[in-house]
């Protein structure tokens, strides 16, 4: 069976290659100068989706696990963060003969705690969904993750705190660590850049850790990894939860930045979108998802006037990428220059 991603050039040691260091320096440089000529809100949105795509790539590109329901973690983290930042009060239903509400009277939380809360919830959902999904392989895995995401989408439609069709609007950005006023666009941008770089470097670290190496071994040949004594299910579950957690960071940050959480974030087209971003940028490359997310978000922004045709264009990009361009933008460049990116 052919692998999901083209085999990477063999990693020489765990230190970052020169090409990766240069690309990273270029990326940081771009993030520093970009707000001088690009609208910061657009940049922040692109960065949130870049984090989302990187988290997704960890699973598909390195674990070989195709999740078609990543909107679940992104969207629910977004809802939880928005709710914590705006309302705070948490009411959990529980069953003792009849339904009761366990009310935790919290004040509206500062953004760092809201983001943390969203991330934790995404991780917990990921733990349950992942434990179910890894019981089947390949194409079934994709269908299970999609079905579970759809179920939680239907829950989000009904749950009182999500605000149904309206979503949670006018989420306050608040003051981070009691010192950083996030209503200032540049302060918000700096915080998002820091979060993004943190997530990016964490993922880089995970990929190049012994854990990441085992993950790649499972992707290439699972029975062989099993025969070497690795408990592959455990590795897959940890990868799944990590990916859900990081998608949660992306979703929570997005809720604070754009000050809204809505059904769009948790519905199936969003799951498809993150697949598209990763595919366009390059599955199994470190920088691919960042490039892919920027391209897709830019496309959506500049093509907003064509309305429904955006869906058609996205679908066409899917088809073209799958037929002609499976390495994605970054993957093709890396292959052309024979470097690792």
């Amino acid at each position, binding site marked *: 069976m052919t692998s999901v991603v083209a085999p990477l050039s063999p990693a020489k040691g765990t230190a970052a290659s020169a090409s990766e260091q240069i690309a990273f320096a270029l990326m940081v440089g771009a993030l520093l100068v970009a707000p001088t000529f690009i609208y910061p809100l657009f940049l922040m949105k692109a960065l949130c989706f870049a984090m989302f795509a990187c988290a997704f790539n960890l699973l598909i590109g390195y674990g070989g696990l195709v999740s078609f329901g990543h909107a679940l973690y992104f969207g629910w983290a977004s809802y939880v963060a928005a709710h914590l930042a705006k309302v705070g009060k948490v009411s959990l239903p529980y069953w003792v003969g009849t339904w009761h509400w366990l009310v935790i009277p919290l004040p509206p939380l500062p953004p760092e705690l809201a983001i943390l809360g969203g991330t934790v919830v995404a991780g917990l959902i990921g733990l349950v969904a992942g434990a179910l999904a890894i019981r089947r392989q390949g194409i079934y895995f994709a*269908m299970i993750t*999609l079905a579970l995401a759809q179920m939680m989408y*239907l829950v989000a439609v009904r749950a009182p705190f999500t605000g149904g069709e309206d979503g949670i609007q006018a989420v306050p950005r608040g003051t981070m660590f009691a010192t950083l006023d996030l209503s200032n666009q540049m302060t918000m941008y700096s915080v998002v850049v820091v979060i993004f770089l943190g997530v990016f470097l964490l993922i880089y670290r995970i990929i190049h850790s012994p854990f990441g190496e085992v993950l790649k071994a499972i992707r290439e040949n699972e029975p062989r990894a099993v025969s070497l004594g690795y408990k592959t299910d455990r590795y897959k579950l940890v990868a799944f939860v990590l990916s859900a957690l990081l998608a949660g960071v992306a979703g929570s940050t997005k809720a604070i930045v754009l000050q809204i959480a809505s059904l769009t974030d948790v519905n199936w087209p969003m799951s498809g979108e993150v697949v598209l971003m990763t595919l366009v940028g390059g599955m199994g490359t470190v920088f691919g998802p960042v490039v892919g997310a920027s391209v897709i978000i830019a496309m959506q922004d500049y093509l907003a006037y064509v309305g429904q*045709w955006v*869906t*058609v264009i996205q*679908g066409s990009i*899917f088809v073209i990428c799958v037929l002609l361009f499976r390495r994605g933008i970054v993957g093709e460049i890396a292959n052309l220059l024979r470097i690792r990116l």
Partner: protein
Amino acid sequence: MFEIFGVPSQALFGQLLLGLINGSFYALLSLGLAVIFGMLNIINFSHGAQYMMGAFVAFLLLQYMNLGYWLALLIAPIVVGCLGIVIERVLLRRLYRLDHLYGLLLTFGLALIIEGVFRNYFGSAGLPYRVPESLQGGYNLGFMFLPTYRAWVIAFSLFVCLTTWFVIERTNLGSYLRAATENPSLVRAFGINVPRMITLTYSFGVGLAALAGVMAAPIYNVSPQMGSELIIVVFAVVVIGGMGSIMGAIVTGFGLGIIEGLTKVFSPEASNTVIFVIMAVVLLVRPAGLFGRAT
């Protein structure tokens, strides 16, 4: 009027009927998915879009050519099936040697394209489609009212499902098909044109989806997004049943439809998530699916 479990019989049987109707569509669609997966090793994500196209072909035939339901029932599957031939020959054929994932991604892209185009031209609102005159009215069974059209949908989809099962499991053609699923190169060596068989299988599978779409048109409105939500539920049905067995797909489809209908009687909120919950339970208890072989 009498009661069962404290529920008026009218409501109970009414929901049971709705459940059977939904079950017919689950069965027809998961059957198509299973047949396509068996031959092509591809999960056809555009199945929902092709179901929607079937309904739209019926709608357009009535609107612009004044051709009624019965002709639509024949023409729509042929039109969508022909489109399926083109899709298989031009696009899917290039993916057989790659990972299953790419088939899923490509057909997902196709679903986006098809749905987007239809939404551009017809908007998101549902368009009504009349029940054909010969199937209007209904029967009073004493304990419930049975609309003729709904009885027809259940009977006809059952007939189509069982015919498909019979052809695949009990005829010569079906035995070629099953053999080609197991070992295509050996079957080719016997002089059977396997690539053509694959093309026709795909076109038959999407034709089934279109047929379901035509049958659904008078019950639900015809709308561009009618397929996408249905197909996700059908994926859950396929995970529950496993794609290894044709009869399994049929039984699971109808069975889950009935369970969904009965759930609606007792808890309307739970009814649209019950299939996903059942999927989770099945994964815990029997990971390979009810009719699946362990992979």
